[in-house]
């Protein structure tokens, strides 16, 4: 890891509901440098809430508490909403999971992407349009001119995801939080979109938080991986060493995957141990209390 871009210490996300307090994220700490950090976990593990709280997008009754959350030397927790808006979108962008709910249904996709650019850059409309078309082509959309004028409901799920990615990348952010950015894409398109993200990290020094439930993908794409379970980080390791993970939860997840290379009979089923909620944490194969 090169120098740290985002540093989070003791992050909690709580929801105050009529049935009591639900803690979605329970005191996690991590750093993101100019690298690809994978955040893996099952639904409900708190991985999406972690991403959203970095951008301060958790709304009441949700409450975000952190000992420290700094981005490039700026204290994110202490910023005013106005200052936060300078960072959100421009310097830290987030690709949301579901393009159907994240795109404006009454604006063409082209004008939405161009707007994302114009908000942060003082350029002529024609220039924003040209940049948008380039961006659509970069995310492998065939015939960008035609897609520019489409409304979100006229696009497929895979196109929607690529449109979201184009919109988030157009302001040239330093840190991209991508929440399941390629889950609706075909493997070959997924490969191409990942290559775009990969190049941004290796060539431009962008930081990437890659939230996913796909263990094999994260192992082959990311540099480092954190595994989340019930709101905590239970294991951190280099992505290339994910196959040798030590935590029983990580091992259970890996074992439950069907394999192409050999038959496995019945798939192993994960039995969850209640002790994992507070239990051991593994860092690079070493157990920490």
């Amino acid at each position, binding site marked *: 890891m090169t120098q740290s871009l985002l540093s989070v210490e003791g992050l909690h996300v709580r929801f105050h509901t009529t049935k009591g307090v639900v803690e979605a994220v329970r005191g996690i700490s991590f750093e993101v440098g100019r690298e690809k950090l994978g955040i893996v976990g*099952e639904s409900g593990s708190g991985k999406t809430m972690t991403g959203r709280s970095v951008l301060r997008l958790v709304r009441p009754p949700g409450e975000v508490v952190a000992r420290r959350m700094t981005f490039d030397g700026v204290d994110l927790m202490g910023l005013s909403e106005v200052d936060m808006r300078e960072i959100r979108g421009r310097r830290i962008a987030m690709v949301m999971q579901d393009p159907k709910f994240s795109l404006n249904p009454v604006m063409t996709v082209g004008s939405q992407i161009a707007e994302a650019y114009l908000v942060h850059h003082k350029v002529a409309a024609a220039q924003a349009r040209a940049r948008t078309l380039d961006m659509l082509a970069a995310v492998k959309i065939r015939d960008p001119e035609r897609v520019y004028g489409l409304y979100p409901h006229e696009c497929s799920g*895979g196109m929607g995801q690529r449109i979201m990615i184009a919109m988030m990348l157009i302001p040239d952010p330093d840190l991209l939080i991508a929440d399941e950015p390629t889950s609706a894409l075909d493997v*070959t398109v997924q*490969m191409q979109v990942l290559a775009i993200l990969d190049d941004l990290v290796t060539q431009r020094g962008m930081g990437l938080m890659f939230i996913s439930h796909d*263990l094999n993908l994260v192992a082959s794409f990311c540099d480092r991986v954190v595994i989340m379970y019930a709101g905590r980080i239970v294991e951190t390791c280099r992505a290339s060493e994910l196959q040798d993970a030590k935590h029983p939860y990580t091992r259970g997840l890996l074992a439950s995957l069907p*394999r*192409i*290379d050999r038959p496995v009979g019945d*798939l192993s*089923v994960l039995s969850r141990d209640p002790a994992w909620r507070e239990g051991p944490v593994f860092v690079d194969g070493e157990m920490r209390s």
Partner: protein
Amino acid sequence: MIEVENLTVTFGVGASAIRAVRGISFRVDEGETFGLVGESGSGKSTVLRALSGLNPDWTGVLRVDGQVLGQRRSKAFHKLVQMVFQDPYGSLHPRHTVDRVLSEPLAIHGMGDVDRRIETALAEVGLGPSFRFRYPHQLSGGQRQRVAIARALVLEPKVLLLDEPTSSLDVSVQAEILNLLQRLKRERGLTFMLVTHNLAVVAHMCDRLAVMNAGRVVEEMSVDELRRGAATHAYTLQLLNASLGYDRSKARDLVTFE
């Protein structure tokens, strides 16, 4: 069990017509699991929908259990062939209890002994009797997919058409559902047709598979051939290669097949 000859499905008319499936043929033997693999838009789900009778505009010859299928399906057909859909959130009525979901097909087909059948169906998919009067929002994704499988099985069909049955589930839940399907197949001698884009799931579940691209079957192969990577068509090789994980140099060499 299933024979498909020269199946073509066209949506729309005239210049804007889209030929989603372009004259494909294959057969599935009794007791076999046959996989249909391809990317979105390849026509794999359309084939399944044409077979199940959800998509009436098709040409060609379809046979199930020796019977030639017409555009409209008889009640007997639906007793023989049932379908499980991709999205358990969308395929269960939000205001119907599990009990109602399971008793409706029984009522339609005039099958008696409803109580016993529902309890057996629930037990078979690993849900206790306490689940019987719950609504879908009181179930997790995996439990909903179990209910959807129970609904398909309650009529005691011989063929299950599975459209991406685990792609919206977590991997540990996927393992449970795939194990459940394998067990039911062994116990009941079912014939499965499985549509998915996940090659690992196909390798785990199927005996044979067909790879589709742009409405055509480009290759039919056995699972052993898939495991060995012994594909002959360039498209299958690319798909197989891409499924093995990310690699920057691989991404550069990808081509689009039409």
